[in-house]
């Protein structure tokens, strides 16, 4: 039986690919890594201590552009909606600002890293308006840019 790709493999392959393309990794997380950095919603939105905190799967920076990845092994609509909310709302602005205070940046983009399949690709294409970029993990760790409207990874 063919072994299923894991989110850990997707995230590690993207990390290696980003660093090979001169991106600086600010933080990363995958299930069991223990390395994640929780970002909390702005004070006015907090009901309880950890309510609504999110842990980005990868944050990286290059040439003043910061990218946030949400990674999965397949298309998950709720993740696309999460990315859309991050792009459109400022619910986490204070936490993100503090998190990035040592870096100079002019733009933050939110996108996804997914294990490729035809189904995932088709579904992603139907929801491109929700995300800032998409990269796909293909076999044996190869990363391919799928959607990068501003030439982010050129």
């Amino acid at each position, binding site marked *: 039986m063919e072994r299923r790709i894991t989110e*850990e493999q997707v995230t590690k392959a993207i990390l290696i690919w980003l660093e090979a393309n001169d991106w600086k990794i600010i933080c990363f997380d995958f299930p069991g890594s*223990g390395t994640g950095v929780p970002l909390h919603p702005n004070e006015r939105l907090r009901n309880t201590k950890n309510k609504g905190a999110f842990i980005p799967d990868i944050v990286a920076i290059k040439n003043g552009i910061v990218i946030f990845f949400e990674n999965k092994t397949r298309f998950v609509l709720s993740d696309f909606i999460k990315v859309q909310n991050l792009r459109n709302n400022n619910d986490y602005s204070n936490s993100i600002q503090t998190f990035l205070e040592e870096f100079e940046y002019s733009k933050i983009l939110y996108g996804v890293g997914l294990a490729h399949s035809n189904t995932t690709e088709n579904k992603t294409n139907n929801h491109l308006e929700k995300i800032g970029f998409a990269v796909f993990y293909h076999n044996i760790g190869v990363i391919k840019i799928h959607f990068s409207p501003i030439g982010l990874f050129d």
Partner: protein
Amino acid sequence: MKYRIWYSTESFADYIIAKTNLWNKNVVKKKMYESDANNSKNFHSLPDHIKQILYLDAPDLIVELDTEPIFSIEISQEAGTGHNAFQRFARLAASVENDVPAFYIYPEAAIITRLKTPPKWDKINPLVFKAMEDVMTIYKIPALLYYFPSDFRTHPNALTSPNIRNKGLKYDKNRNFAGSPDSTHSEMVLMFEAINEIISVVEKSGVIEGRGKLLGKRILSTRKALMQNEYVTKGGNENMSPLSATVKIRTEYLLNHLSQYENKSYEIGELLRSREETIIYKVDATFRGDPYPGALAAIDYLRCREGKTFEERKYNLVMCWGNLELDEEEKTFTIHSDKSTVHDFVNAVQSSEEKNLLKKDYNDIPSCEIPRYYMQVRYGSMFSKVKHIRVFSYFADAILFPDGALWRDA
């Protein structure tokens, strides 16, 4: 000789294989599933001897040689103040109680940033060294702690730590080992040497015979001595958390308290009566899991245990969810809490039970669930309850709430 590496994080499995003598062995990696409660689809497919180690809680890695486990590793990046250092203790106990040497990788300190105060190092509670020593004394099996590499010793001022974003911890630079500790750090180099020693001994003497020789090996006994030294130099004492949350009482008080559950046809059994005194672990909090299961396990070894099973205790070990008020006149006590009730416990048990298969008709069980059904026929809900319920009911002779109690008769 065939090695199998059971892992929860593949990076860490790759790291241990690459950095120890496992690199040139016949090694197969296998994904480990924590429990039937949190992975009902896969847990039943694990070998029985692995299930037994996972019964209390799952370590991050188990290495076996020809189907005999030879060591386990638990790794944490958390700051180890107070109860926190003991959060994973039940995992170590589960390993050692199955005669499997356990490694614990834990930061000597981690940087914590709190609102309105500058970042600072939160240091490990040294009582964890004493608890591990006591486990080793009872089982004669290594339970060794190695520090997760950090900037603590080189940058005592947390603000100057080059790894402040990672809580001051130093990770391996190889992305294939993402999330693993810096393999060039002396603590990790020493741990790799200890692992290599275990591999060498079990290959030479066999797993069963080899286990008994391990604590006599210089590399392992030196670490044991260092841990004893760390306990002393870091100011360890028995008034530290979680022991500071315990009280020792005459068992008579406990029996008088529990007498409310006795009647003409039922009397509390012999186990609790057999010990003159009782250690009560007081938790005035909402009923929940971490860090309390690990702390309870540690209290057992630090205060109660004299032998390998819960029957071999000097004192009863009782968990009390609430404030305890002694009544010296009546030689009993009352419990007050507006945070926890016995129904919290029972609801958690019921919730786990709802996911079980034993009440199903054969025709309602799909083929893929039959092995799980058969596992539950053999073990009941042993692996199917949530972790904190499993650990509490394994270690505590009794669990007390303001409105109810659970206890063992024998």
